[in-house]
């Protein structure tokens, strides 16, 4: 079956259809990771978005359920050059094509994903519709016969008329309040892992075990796994939990998770984070959590042209000058000009475009990063930040 990707700028791509045949309107972004498609699919931060993979061969190693970053994909649609019809890996339990169907995710294959990426890079992130219905557009009469009937793979806006209602729907789309869609609905407690594949956890690690409250805005599982591997007890709270309810449990530290959408759309959550800021409990925040803390303390965020999504972004630790390759997935960023150094100073910057990648809060035991130290997919280079968080809590305890 053919499937169509209609862009906000009036372009249409035609490809092969996979997965669910439902029609979706979404915000289209691209991800440059060469591995980790399942982690991308199940990253709740993609809620409200359709993701185009720039690497052309996707699905090669099948589906390994233990690599899922949440219980199910939260994204709206998936686009790849070629999805493998066979899978080869000792852990594979199924095919990507089946997985997409199982989770009701529509996918398009066989389109020129590099061209699409270049469009998004040049024009910025845009909305799109994925549909199998070819009645929503009409090809313009082509006197030069440049468009060969049934043989076209994409149409420029000049060659096609798209149904007004469809175009309206695409243009009006916003990701909206997506955090509520992906957060958990009740508090879940994870007990520390007392043994691992490498043997029993060492005594000194046990001693420093901490109780951590994780505010779930769409947390990736690996944040929890990372904390557990440090022998922490993790209590996961729904995004709308009142700060008081968390504080009264006396956690040693609070983590603000990653999550989807525009941080400014988070409304009352920001107020609760302000209370956490005031509480003097050590806080470590990732991605959306980082942006929310900035908003809560008076800074502003802005939408990026096409964001950072991939596993190759260099971030510089301004404290040490060291550069780490990081996993990233964000379309908004903290506006550095809006920072008040009495409140927070940059801790990390992106080496490519000098955008903010992390903040250290003045006089507080709070640090936040825009990138993903929990990786999955992507490099583990900044995993040490979890350790830094633990040390911070230890210092706090001893203080």
């Amino acid at each position, binding site marked *: 079956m053919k499937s169509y990707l209609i862009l906000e700028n009036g372009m249409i791509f035609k490809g092969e259809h996979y997965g669910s045949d439902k029609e979706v309107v979404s915000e289209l972004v691209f991800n440059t990771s060469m591995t980790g498609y*399942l982690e991308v699919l199940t990253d709740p931060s993609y809620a409200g978005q359709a993701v185009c993979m720039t690497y052309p061969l996707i699905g090669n*190693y099948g589906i390994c359920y233990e690599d899922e970053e949440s219980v199910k994909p939260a994204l709206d649609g998936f686009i790849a050059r070629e999805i493998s019809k066979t899978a080869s890996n*000792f852990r594979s339990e199924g095919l990507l094509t089946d997985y997409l169907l199982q989770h009701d995710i529509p996918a398009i294959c066989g389109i020129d994903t590099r*061209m699409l990426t*270049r469009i998004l890079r040049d024009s910025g992130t845009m909305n799109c519709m994925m549909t199998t219905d070819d009645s929503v557009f009409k090809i313009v009469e082509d006197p030069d016969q440049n468009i*060969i009937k049934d043989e076209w793979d994409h149409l420029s806006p000049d060659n096609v008329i798209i149904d007004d209602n469809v175009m309206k729907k695409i243009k009006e789309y916003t990701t909206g309040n997506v955090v509520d869609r992906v957060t958990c609905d009740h508090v879940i407690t994870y007990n520390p892992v007392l043994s691992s594949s490498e043997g029993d956890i060492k005594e000194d690690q046990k001693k420093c075990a901490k109780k951590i409250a994780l505010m779930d805005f769409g947390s990736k599982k690996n944040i929890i796994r990372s904390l557990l591997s440090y022998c922490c007890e993790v209590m996961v709270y729904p995004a709308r939990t009142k700060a008081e309810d968390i504080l009264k449990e006396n956690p040693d530290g609070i983590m603000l998770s990653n999550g989807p959408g525009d941080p400014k759309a988070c409304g009352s959550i920001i107020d609760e984070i302000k209370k956490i800021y005031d509480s003097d409990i050590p806080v470590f925040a990732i991605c959306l959590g980082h942006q929310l803390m900035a908003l809560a303390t008076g800074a502003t965020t802005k939408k990026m042209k096409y964001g950072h999504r991939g596993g190759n972004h260099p971030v510089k630790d301004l404290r040490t000058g060291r550069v780490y390759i990081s996993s990233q997935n964000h379309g908004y960023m903290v506006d550095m000009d809006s920072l008040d150094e009495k409140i927070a100073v940059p801790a990390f910057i992106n080496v490519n475009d000098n955008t903010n990648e992390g903040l250290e809060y003045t006089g507080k035991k709070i640090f936040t990063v825009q990138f993903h130290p929990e990786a999955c997919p992507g490099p583990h280079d900044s995993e040490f930040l979890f350790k830094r968080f633990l040390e911070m809590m230890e210092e706090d305890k001893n203080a």
Partner: protein
Amino acid sequence: MPKNKSIKKVLVIGSGPIIIGQAAEFDYAGTQACRSLKEEGMEVVLINSNPATIMTDKNIADKVYIEPLTVKAVEQLIKKEKPDSILPTLGGQAGLNLAMELEERGFLKENGVKLIGTTALTIKKAEDRQEFKDTMEKIGEPVAASTVVKTVEEGIAFSGKIGYPVVLRPAYTLGGSGGGIAYNEEQLISILENGLRLSRVGEVLVERCIAGWKEIEYEVMRDNAGNCITVCNMENIDPVGVHTGDSIVVAPSQTLGDKEYQMLRSSALNIITELGITGGCNVQYALNPDSFEYCVIEVNPRVSRSSALASKATGYPIAKVAAKIALGYNLDEIKNAITGKTYACFEPMLDYVVVKIPRLPFDKFISARRTLTTQMKATGEVMSICNNFEGALMKAIRSLEQHVDSLMSYDFSELSRKEMLAELETVDDMRIWRAAQALRMGITRDEVQKITRIDRWFIDKLYNITEMEYRLKTAELDIPMLREAKRIEFPDYMIASLNGKTLQYVKDMRLSAGITASYKIVDTCAAEFEAETPYYYSVYGDENEVITTDSDKKKILVLGSGPIRIGQGIEFDFCSVHCTWALKNEGYETIIINNNPETVSTDFDIADRLYFEPLTPEDVENIVNIEHPVGAVVQFGGQTAIKLTRSLIDMGVPILGTSAENVDAAEDRELFDGILEKCGIQRPKGHTVFTVEEAIDAAHELGYPVLVRPSYVLGGQGMQIAVNDEDIEQYIGIINRIVQEHPILVDKYLEGKEIEVDAVCDGEDVLIPGIMEHIERAGIHSGDSISVYPARTISDTARKKLADYTKKLAAALHVVGMINIQFIVCDDDVYVIEVNPRSSRTVPYISKVTGLPVIPLAVKCITGHKLKDIMPEMFAEKDNNDPENDIPGLWPERDYFAIKIPVFSFEKIRGADISLGPEMKSTGECLGISKSFNEALYKAFLGAGINLPKHKNMIMTVRDEEKEEAVDIARRFEKLGYKIYATLGTAKVLNAAGINAVRTNKIEQDSPNLMDLILGHKIDLVIDIPPQGAEHSRDGFLIRRNAIETGVNVITAIDTARALVTSLENRNDDKLSLINIAKL
């Protein structure tokens, strides 16, 4: 960190002659590094014994020494030039070993020279087997159970403990020389004895065999601040057990999940950090296909073949960045040259697939075993880029230049199912073809996977290709099928032949459906950032990113020379690159097409546009259709480019320089005879034939010995000297194994001096840079002969004739550009044996030793300039009768000798016959240069690695015709203190002449015989001059093979032996004259 200010003058050590395991990739790395250093204002001193390299050009380094890469030579050079630093990590293993030896001797410290880039301690930690193992254990990185042994007994004991099979790896050798897998004690003893001998330190690592695991490589960079990145990872399609240089490799890895990918990536970063490497490094892993278990196989603390591949696969210039790091810069301070916007501190993301296939030399060494092992055998490689794996594989196959164009190119259809199941176990260069046939026969993908242990994903892809073959064969061609066939890169002619259509039919159908090739940019970042670098690869059915500029510049297409193979080596890359630079200087926009990832020509900043594509008519036509060049230059890309001449003309692209008709005239025997007659030039009598009978008749008419060879070949492929009818039958049989479009030539063999001339012609005037003379008599391929510039033993009459003939031939063939002519001189008589109206192997050599910019001059001629205008003084009217005057057009001879000596890689190719003849066998060359002939000769031998004596024992066995000549040579060796062992006949002659030669039994006779002597490791040198014609006894072959495999030097031509003894009589290691050729 900013640049280290204390570094001002840097010595860069090159990698020496091209041998298997150390090829053009180090010219690419070294050239890039030198340019990078100069960019930073460094004074660069370069030493490399290889004259065919681009790095030894005077515009690459400030001071260039083409000198032997020995400790003594480098020590003297350091004393002379006084550099403050050495960059040792860009010259491959040769350069690294040399730097380490200087460091260990304390020489560097004494002379205030520091190693930059990576410290000696780091190199030791990575290279020394035990230290490496200890280091890995310290940081918890698993290595296969192993131990370092110094004796065979230790090896037997340890292998007994860990169980067979075991892998053996000698320390400090390159390309895995002397290594292998032993499945039992007997094999262990044989490989281990040899490996211990070849190792520089007499150590061999014995380790648990992990054959069959996935082999994965990471290219890693680290800077002075400790920032680490991985440039690329690569997956070998051939599982562990085949040397990575002989494996088909794909980038990035295809069958690793993110967990595995990141696990190995983190491990690679841990390793580079612990070793403290600053610069580039390559880490090889074995990954258990059924678990997360992995082992570190090897770390190379330097740039390598893999890093060249990774650079081309990603667009990330590893050597350039490594050089900057050596100067003190950090990754986040170095710009990404492709985007110009981002920094070197990031990891390239690919949005395409890269496939590399090794180019193996079994077409040259027919008797060699094709089995692939942990010892590398490939002479070169090709790379291809596509957005799907099938397409990348198809493109790489047709880039190989070895009569293959698809998975159908080797025919295994004769095999029964049972035979096929057995044959699938074979690990050789034809394995994927065999697997494809197995799939066609209905053997399941799982079965093929199980037997070959090639990952199922790759088998699936082979299956997809065979499925397409089947569909094309059985179904009527429609547009969706055609679209899919083109997507996975089936050439039009193949679609046509499978589907029973004409080529034109397929082409028309394709164009009417709008199915055309388009080009994408390699941009390091999967389109995330804008990139201006015009580095392209083709795909079907996608957007075309080539922006055809409106500049006024005319575009010229330069065709590269494809993979490095015996007969067409790095020299042709030198020619292509210089042609490109010269065209740029002439104001043209240059477009280069090539598919060799090791070379300078495929660096993205050489031509204005680089197309990384196969060099076949269809692939070239697709580019022509987009670029519309005003012309193409084919005379610099060797036979690969020449072969495309006709196709280019058919596409409407004019050939610049010598016309195609004249190229044909030089190759077509009848036309050429006509020209010779017109010019009054003689050539050895000969005939063109097609059959054995005709050949035998021709030989009888001419009288034996005769030279038999196919026309239109390079490197004398298939050329042999026949002394009787049986020889003719055998040789023609070999030639005809590949269908011949052109006739076979049978010529009278003349034993004279072989002379070679390269010349530049503008259609009227001819410039002869120099005349080169071969040390070996005619009959040995010019590429395998020692070549002396200037020719010193020919008469003035002959010299004048040579110049005169060259001019006549160039004029008669209307040569515009380069011409290469080979002559035989017998006293004053001069015969022409071959004319090549194109650039030749000797052009880099003659350019460097004469100081003449030969290729730029040829390019000027091609673009319409006249030599008279460029160098009026050369072509001024002179009185030809005045003996004081130079020969017109002949560039004045230099007052020193430059001797080019061939270098072979015989020890790598099991079963290859090493005796020299008309078919070329050498892989590389090096140069000795000096005011004195004898010193030049000594330096040449030294550079070639013939380092005598150790034991002062030698063996001589000489054919009857040359026994008399052998006497003098033997006497001279005896005088040098050599003990000579000789076979019966030779010993008799030597004893009669008063030489104390010890008679030794032949191999088939009782011990102690020749073989015992060789295997007893007390022999330095074997001089074995086999009879001409096909050798019927295995004796000589066995002697030569065993000698080579035990690391003994072997000489198979009497003239070479004489040259060697002359060089040894003149040895003076401590006082080499060092010549800066940049000043010539």
